[in-house]
């Protein structure tokens, strides 16, 4: 096996990780915001339903959730899921949305009530108050915890292999059968570089948002 074809096979695997990462982020962030509204709802049943949901998702392993999404529809309802990638994305998006929702909730609840009251007496609607005044302050407060989750997400994408989605570590492991260990080791480098870039990016965002205090 020549070096180049191994590297290109690893790149193919890592493309899958990147795809899972990007799609999860893209869908889990807005979904997380919606779930956070649910967990702050004044209407009790919605609030408790959401809280129970978040508890279950955060309280069980992502690996188990992957298996459930993959096999439950087919075995229980005889509507098998059509693609493994779909199963991966459903499980990841729900799982990460639950974590994000708690970060959003914490951020939103940390904004002083006075900000909303100031908006109200200035004749703003509730949505104007949220989108024009509160949201930006929330973002500033949650950049650090979100960056933690995002970096965890990069590494979690390799869990997709448990339902046989050929992500980078699964690709690398194949080469151990041929007596090669370095492809497996080298996968770490992909993750390190990717997370290094993310760390720099989040550092940049934090710095950009540092123009004001409070």
């Amino acid at each position, binding site marked *: 096996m020549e070096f180049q074809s191994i590297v290109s096979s690893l790149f193919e695997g890592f493309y899958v990780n990147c795809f899972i990462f990007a799609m999860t982020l893209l869908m889990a962030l807005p979904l997380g915001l919606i779930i956070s509204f649910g967990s702050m709802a004044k209407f009790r049943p919605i609030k408790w339903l959401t809280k129970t949901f978040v508890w279950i998702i955060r309280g069980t392993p992502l690996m188990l959730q992957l298996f459930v999404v993959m096999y439950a529809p087919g075995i229980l309802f005889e509507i098998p899921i059509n693609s493994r990638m779909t199963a991966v994305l459903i499980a990841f998006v729900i799982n990460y949305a639950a974590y994000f929702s708690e970060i959003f909730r914490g951020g939103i609840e940390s904004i002083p009530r*006075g900000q909303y009251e100031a908006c109200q007496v*200035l004749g703003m609607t509730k949505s104007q108050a949220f989108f024009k005044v509160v949201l930006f302050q929330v973002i500033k407060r949650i950049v650090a915890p979100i960056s933690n989750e995002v970096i965890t997400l990069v590494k979690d994408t390799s869990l997709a292999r448990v339902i046989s989605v050929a992500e980078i570590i699964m690709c690398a492991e194949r080469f151990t059968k041929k007596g090669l260990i370095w492809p497996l080791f080298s996968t770490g480098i992909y993750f390190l570089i990717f997370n290094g870039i993310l760390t720099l990016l989040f550092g940049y965002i934090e710095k950009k948002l540092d123009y004001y205090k*409070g």
Partner: protein
Amino acid sequence: MSILEIKNLTKSFGKTEVLKGVSFSMEEGEVVSIIGSSGSGKTTLLRCANFLEKADSGQIFLDGNLFYDGQDKKKISPAELRQKQLNFGLVFQDFHLFPQYNVIDNVMLAPLLLAKEQEDYKQNKKEIEQQIRKNAEEILDRVGLSDKLNNYPCELSGGQKQRVSIARALALKPRILFFDEPTSALDPELTGEILKVIRKLASEHVTMVIVTHEINFAQGVSDKIIFMADGVVIEEGTPEEVIQNPKNERTRHFLHKMNEK
């Protein structure tokens, strides 16, 4: 006709009765100061008048028209509430400026959002925005902050922050401007600049209701003083009547205590 008339306003939080039937009225261009010890219900009265709290019963009249009725259990729609709210401005004790916007944007934000709802906004976008900016600059000049337009709230002193928040309220041209202890969160040496701004507004005949602990200031600036205790108005009248010659024992006691400080 009175611009504002409040009749028998009551408000309870749980079992605590904070307002037990408060009434007063004021004319356009007047300055009314509300004094009284902490817990007398002054702030709650302002918050009810500005719809930050819902009064349990009683009425508010604006220009003689029924404006709010506590007995009316029908829910006011958010749009209607906003329309009503815009008649009043409120300056908070703790400013509540928007930290991510600079001074001029803090003042312009609400008028801009409001302008976007005008029908001709899209055609005359530029002129409308220029007009709002010009207006904001003028108001900031009136409160003496024309050199701070591009500063952020975190870069300002408490007194400057409070002046921005006064400008922010004025930018919407409220019929009545309410102040909730505007100097209480400030260092003593900074209260003067706020009182000066309020005096200036009074001389320009801005209709104002001021909840304050600054008795001397209230005496100088007000047309009418209201003394509140335990959720009711104990005494009201001109500064001469209430502060120089209080009739009620509790007013005398309160003023005496304030003098000792």
